[in-house]
């Protein structure tokens, strides 16, 4: 329902978004991940026709966003929860949106109910809202037109844990009813629980793109810890098993991540009579590790690490 093809944005000599392509299918939640400044918001604004693209195309429901008659009826957009008039009440903000979209005013009240802003909160001015309340209002605004596609930029920002859980449920339901959701975040755990597909962007380029289950597929790496780390290390090296990483443990010992199946490691340890304390599949940190590797583990724009073959992640 969303197709982004070779989208590029340059500001003078600076390339903010480069050759970004991905798609969102009905019934799925696509997590759009990347550190701050990676180009997520710029990509989303280009998708919504607010920022002109230098090159490339973006379509929603098969057409450019700006060509959709009354787009709010098809695409719910939340690009910045703080971008609301501070002097307008929450109810009035939604009533205006309902008016533009041509949906009954009743729909605005229903949405306030849905996001938990009904009653007293609705009558307060947005200037007095917390960031979490603005996010809820923004989500309500995106939903007023009963769209089939949602484009949400960092909607979990400022939400409390309960709010994040609520939003996940809401987005999951939306996708399960056949909608498509594009959801950006710079925090993995916000997206990990709800997304089906992940697009990871760093330094303006897509560095990983695929189904969450594929991206998180077992790596063939094993985490191992022994009573005597030195002895285990010697045994692993002797058996010709590649040790990828050495991790200090809390008690002053050392654990290893090995590129080998658990059985081979177990045999090597048994042969040298090393006592194992832990032997399990590595990568328990889920996306965190993937994300940190891909983005270079830093907050700023990062060049994709050449040591991570993109194909291996698909």
């Amino acid at each position, binding site marked *: *329902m969303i*197709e982004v093809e070779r989208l590029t944005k340059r500001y003078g000599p600076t390339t903010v978004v480069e050759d970004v392509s991905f*798609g969102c*299918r*009905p019934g799925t939640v696509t997590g759009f991940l990347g550190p701050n400044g990676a180009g997520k*918001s710029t990509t989303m*604004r280009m998708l*919504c*026709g*607010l*920022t*002109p693209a230098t090159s490339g195309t973006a379509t*929603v*429901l*098969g*057409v450019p*966003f*700006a*060509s*959709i*008659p*009354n*787009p*709010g*009826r*098809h695409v719910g*957009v939340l*690009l*910045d929860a*703080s*971008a*609301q*008039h*501070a*002097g*307008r009440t929450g109810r*009035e903000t939604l009533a*205006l*949106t309902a*008016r*533009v*979209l*041509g949906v009954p005013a009743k729909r605005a009240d229903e949405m306030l109910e849905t996001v938990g802003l009904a009653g007293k909160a609705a009558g307060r*001015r947005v200037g007095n809202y917390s960031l979490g309340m603005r996010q809820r209002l923004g989500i309500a*605004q995106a939903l007023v037109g009963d769209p*089939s596609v949602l484009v949400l930029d960092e909607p979990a920002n400022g939400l409390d844990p309960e709010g994040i859980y609520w939003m996940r449920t809401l987005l999951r339901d939306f996708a399960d009813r056949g909608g498509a959701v594009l959801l950006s975040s710079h925090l993995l755990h916000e997206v990990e629980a709800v997304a089906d597909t992940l697009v990871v962007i760093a330094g303006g380029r897509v560095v990983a793109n695929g189904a969450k289950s594929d991206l998180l597929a077992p790596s063939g790496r094993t985490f191992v810890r022994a009573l005597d780390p030195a002895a285990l290390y010697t045994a692993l090296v002797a058996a010709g098993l590649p040790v990828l990483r050495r991790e200090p443990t809390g008690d002053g010992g050392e654990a290893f991540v090995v590129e080998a199946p658990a059985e081979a490691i177990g045999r090597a340890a048994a042969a040298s009579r090393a006592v194992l304390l832990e032997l399990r599949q590595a990568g328990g940190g889920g996306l965190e590790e993937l994300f940190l590797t891909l983005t270079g583990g830093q907050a700023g724009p990062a060049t994709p690490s050449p040591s991570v073959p993109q194909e291996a992640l698909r």
Partner: protein
Amino acid sequence: MTVLDLTQAPARPPLTRLALVELVELRKMTDTRAGRWLLAIIALVAIATVVVFMAVRPADEQSAGQLFGLSQIGVGLLLPVVGILAVTGEWSQRTALTTFALVPQRLRILTAKVLAAVVLATGFVLLGLVLGVLGRGVGGVLGVSSGEWDLPVRAIGSMLLVEVATVLIGVAFGTLLMNTPVAIVLYFVLPTVWTTVGSMVKALRDASVWLDTNRAFEPLTGESAATGTEWARAGTAIALWMVVPLAIGAYRLMKREVK
């Protein structure tokens, strides 16, 4: 993949759509705290001007037409600020993100804002008419007013034109500058600077009657009908202060990134 069939799209005639967006823009000028206060203050100033005039001036000066004209002094001064805010507010409050995501046709929004400003100006002219007649009536009863009752159509028409032009100059400044404080300051300072310079520099004196709104609009609301030259001067001033900034601003709006 689901593709939107544009031929099956809800066929809302463009004109109705514009009217709808215009109503929304009109509502947006009046539903914020700042907007409400500003409009209330303008109305209060109009009323106060009429009341003060009635209290201090001789009875025979107090005609309905005179009171009507007086009521519009404050309106002409302050209503353009509403016009400026209607446009710059989208950027200072960053609501442009939502506005243009809902209506990607940016010129449609600008047109709607212009029309909404015209409606507001017309509303205040109507308020002025009511104040003029009411003031003369009440003044008559109290024995302080004994002037004429008639409100010439020419005077009303010219006043409406000047009012609309004034508020649209505000909208034009807002559209061009897209920044609230800059637009408001320049709106008030530029014409005054122009008037001052025009009256001081001999070479500019002739040009200033054509390009200074303060002087060009004056004959339009005067006692006698404006001459052809006077109309031409008003038209030139409108072109310089309204049409040019609005056109450049519209171009900027089309090109700029909304963020």
